[in-house]
């Protein structure tokens, strides 16, 4: 009996196995279906002479509403029914179900990847999970879609002046699985909004620098001139402390999480070019443009850390600085009781805004100072060939990729650009007496009164999705930050007007500190590789090491901490990562020369 049962079981199991195999052979995966559809679309595209035959117009599309789900991550993304996005939906029939992650991007992205429960469009940070998505087989090749349904987008992305992005991001098989964002694209003959390479370049707004920032007019009162090196900085700090000896004023402050930015600022002072993944935090540096090293390994840094330590030991550094959180640090900066900081611009934007809003500090403003170490002749601030931190991918869950790309083509039209970048006429912008798009003082007031204005209105949502042209075809700015109002006396920061009249006017100080080199940016390492692990471990050590060095009791201890940290990084294999960076750059340059 038992024997017969076993026999029966074996037959049943074998039959089930065979059936499942046959089913597997016969069934198309979702991805295969999409690829097939794509290939048939491609063939159709090749067959049409104009490339637009048979493609519905946006007016026709508008009659068939469709919603695409898009994962943008972050804590509180815009809402798909915000007025401007709703207006877009009215005109094109395309609306977006925008999904965030409550700030837990990597968890949500991992779940989507493992369960294959993707949104139609996914915004990925290029330093995490990106490679696993690329190798998942679940992404759609965007090149044929761009060529057929969004030729303007394709053309602008691939212009050499915009970095030939299609070619750069296509893989060895010529397939394009992602597009980046956060770069203002130019048509042929157009000039950049801010020509950082121009010899007479004047920085209009506060820059995106990692430098020394000092409080104006305090710096004028206690020091009277620009601070150009660490010795002068020391003198200025001493003078400030003499004027404000109480414990409520800080000659210099920092937070426990800004070590990476401080290092970037310091290395710029020593003549290094500092590079990063994206625009946030320095990762690798070079002095000769040939040999790239992990930032912490630059030997000059030890001198800089000793300087910070000296400030701490002499009471010139905020005693809570190395251990305080970013929020605590930001609050001190906002109060105008911190004379200086070395770090990133984002703290300064918030602080300057806060200072202006309070009657007692409305005349104060933090301004950048260009430090140079002795013997250094060139200060490098930023390689602006950077092409965006996020990648947009379209997954095989997307119900109608062609429709999505027809929408992107519309977005690149003047109508789409104005709606995205300026909003709705009469509500978000006006047409001024010269017939140009502009911001009225009333609208400006509205925007400033409500810090969430842009978020609530759905303004410039697509800046975070794909690259957007800088101008509309009539030569006007495609985004409201280019409004003529902001160039008028009324629209400018009153404090900045004063700084411009003083010896502390910094607006021309950064000429020649920006450069553009595509070969040394956009280098990403597979998240699972030993190189990536080594980098992650090194990055995890930096903030802690900087805080410890500032807090050290003597210069000897600073040196000891520095050497131990270096040793730890070497043990973790940072040299592997450095080799990868150097090899990649060398290989790109060699390919360019061929």
């Amino acid at each position, binding site marked *: 009996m038992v024997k017969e049962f076993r026999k029966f079981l074996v037959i049943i199991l074998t039959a089930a196995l065979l059936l499942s195999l046959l089913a597997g052979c016969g069934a198309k995966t979702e991805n295969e279906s999409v690829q097939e559809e794509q290939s048939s679309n491609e063939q159709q595209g090749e067959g049409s002479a104009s490339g637009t035959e048979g493609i519905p117009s946006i007016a026709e599309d508008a009659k068939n509403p469709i919603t695409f789900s898009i994962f943008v991550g972050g804590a*509180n993304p815009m809402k798909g029914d915000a007025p401007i996005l709703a207006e877009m939906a009215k005109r094109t029939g395309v609306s977006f179900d925008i999904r965030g992650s409550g700030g837990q991007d990597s968890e949500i992205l991992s*779940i989507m990847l493992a*369960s294959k429960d993707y949104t139609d469009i996914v915004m990925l940070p290029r330093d995490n999970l990106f490679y696993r998505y690329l190798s998942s087989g679940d992404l759609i090749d965007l090149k044929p879609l761009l060529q057929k349904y969004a030729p303007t987008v394709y053309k602008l992305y691939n212009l050499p002046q915009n970095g030939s992005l299609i070619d750069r991001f296509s893989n060895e098989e010529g397939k394009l699985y992602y597009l980046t964002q956060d770069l203002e694209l130019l048509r042929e003959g157009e000039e950049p909004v801010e020509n950082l390479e121009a010899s007479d370049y004047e920085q209009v707004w506060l820059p995106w620098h990692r430098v020394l920032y000092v409080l104006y007019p305090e710096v004028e009162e206690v020091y009277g001139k620009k601070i150009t090196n660490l010795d002068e900085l020391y003198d200025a700090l001493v003078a400030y402390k003499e004027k404000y000896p109480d414990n409520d004023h800080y000659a210099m402050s920092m937070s426990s999480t800004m070590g990476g930015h401080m290092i970037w600022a310091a290395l710029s002072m020593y003549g290094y070019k500092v590079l990063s993944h994206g625009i946030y935090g320095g990762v690798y540096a070079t002095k000769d443009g040939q040999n790239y090293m992990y930032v912490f390994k630059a030997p000059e840094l030890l001198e800089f850390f000793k300087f910070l330590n000296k400030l701490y030991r002499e009471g010139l550094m905020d005693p809570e600085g190395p251990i305080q959180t970013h929020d605590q640090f930001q609050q001190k900066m906002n*109060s105008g009781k911190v004379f200086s900081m070395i770090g990133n611009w*984002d703290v300064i934007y918030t602080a300057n805004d806060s200072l202006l809003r309070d009657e007692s500090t409305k005349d104060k403003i933090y301004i950048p100072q260009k430090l140079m170490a002795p013997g250094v002749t060139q200060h490098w601030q930023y390689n602006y060939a950077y092409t965006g931190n996020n990648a947009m991918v379209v997954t095989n869950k997307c119900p109608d990729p062609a429709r999505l790309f027809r929408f992107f083509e519309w977005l690149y039209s003047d109508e789409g650009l104005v709606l995205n970048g300026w909003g709705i006429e009469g509500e978000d912008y006006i047409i001024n007496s010269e017939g140009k798009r502009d911001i009225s003082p009333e609208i400006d007031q509205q925007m400033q009164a409500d810090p969430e204005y842009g*978020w609530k209105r759905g303004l410039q949502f697509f800046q975070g999705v794909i690259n957007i042209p800088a101008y509309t075809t009539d030569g006007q700015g495609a985004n409201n930050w280019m409004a003529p109002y902001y160039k008028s006396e009324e629209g400018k920061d009153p404090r900045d007007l004063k700084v411009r009249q003083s010896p502390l006017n910094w607006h021309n100080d950064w000429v020649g500190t920006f450069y553009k080199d595509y070969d040394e940016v956009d280098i990403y390492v597979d998240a699972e590789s030993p190189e990536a692990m080594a980098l992650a471990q090194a990055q995890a050590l930096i903030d802690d090491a900087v805080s410890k060095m500032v807090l050290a009791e003597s210069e000897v201890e600073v040196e000891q901490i520095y050497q131990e940290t270096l040793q730890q990084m070497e043990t973790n294999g940072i040299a592997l990562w450095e080799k990868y960076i150097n090899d990649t750059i060398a290989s790109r340059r060699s390919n360019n020369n061929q």
Partner: protein
Amino acid sequence: MKKSLGEKIFDWVNGVLLTVMAASMVYPFIYVLAISLNEAADSNRGGIFFLPRKFTLDSYRIVFENNDLVNAALVSVGRTVIGTVLTVLCSAMFAYVFTKPEYIIYKPMKVIFFMAMFLGGGALIPVYMLYRSLGLLNSFAVYIIPYLVNLWFVILFRTYYIQLPKALEEAALIDGANELRIFFTIILPLSTPMIATIALFAAVDQWNSWRDTLFFTSKESLKTLQFVMMEVMQKAQARTMITRAAMKMQRIRQVQTADPVSVRMAITIVTTVPIVCVYPFLQKYFIKGMLVGSMKG
């Protein structure tokens, strides 16, 4: 009886220590309350410790004007009330079965029970896939069903039931009551302290939970109060993805990366106070329930 000097010193030290401990627990509430009642722009400059510097209720006005928060509050209340009632009921019933070794399902359930105890809740991705198979994703049920039986609560209930006199059940059986009737009319009414204790645990868990909203729902209408609060807090910390476009918008002060600290604190108060208010009403039962469980275990 007169206290000795040592006892007096002990009382004083005890009093001081307990006062310090109480202050350390109360102070965060005072701090959060003070900032939430201060003008938002002024709070961003720091330096507020006990009392608001520029008193205003603006932050609360902003919070209560937010339609998302009203909806989130309803979801939170809903899941807390429904979830707590069902968790208590199901855990209590499940535990009752574990006091009956004579039941046929006793042994298999015991095996499942211990396996679940030792293997834990599972990693996130398998759990996600399980919920997807069960059709729980993007539904209110995901807040209720996975929490129906909590093994820790089952142990507490079982420990409590065991110490109830067997004679009560036997008398009911002789009078013709079936198990269901015995459970609902005799066992459950006698378990009030334990029900209150577990209701408190379950309610706090439900009220504070935000990870299930994050991982298993994407609908705006299913956001809970704690999830909204988490978003607000995360918004303040998520500075790593600042783009050039965001920077330009920030230049013309069209966008702010984080809500003012006063608004964050007002949300903290709004989300914390309701559950804090539940404690005093259940405290009496809570202590009794905990003591019974611990001494008879």
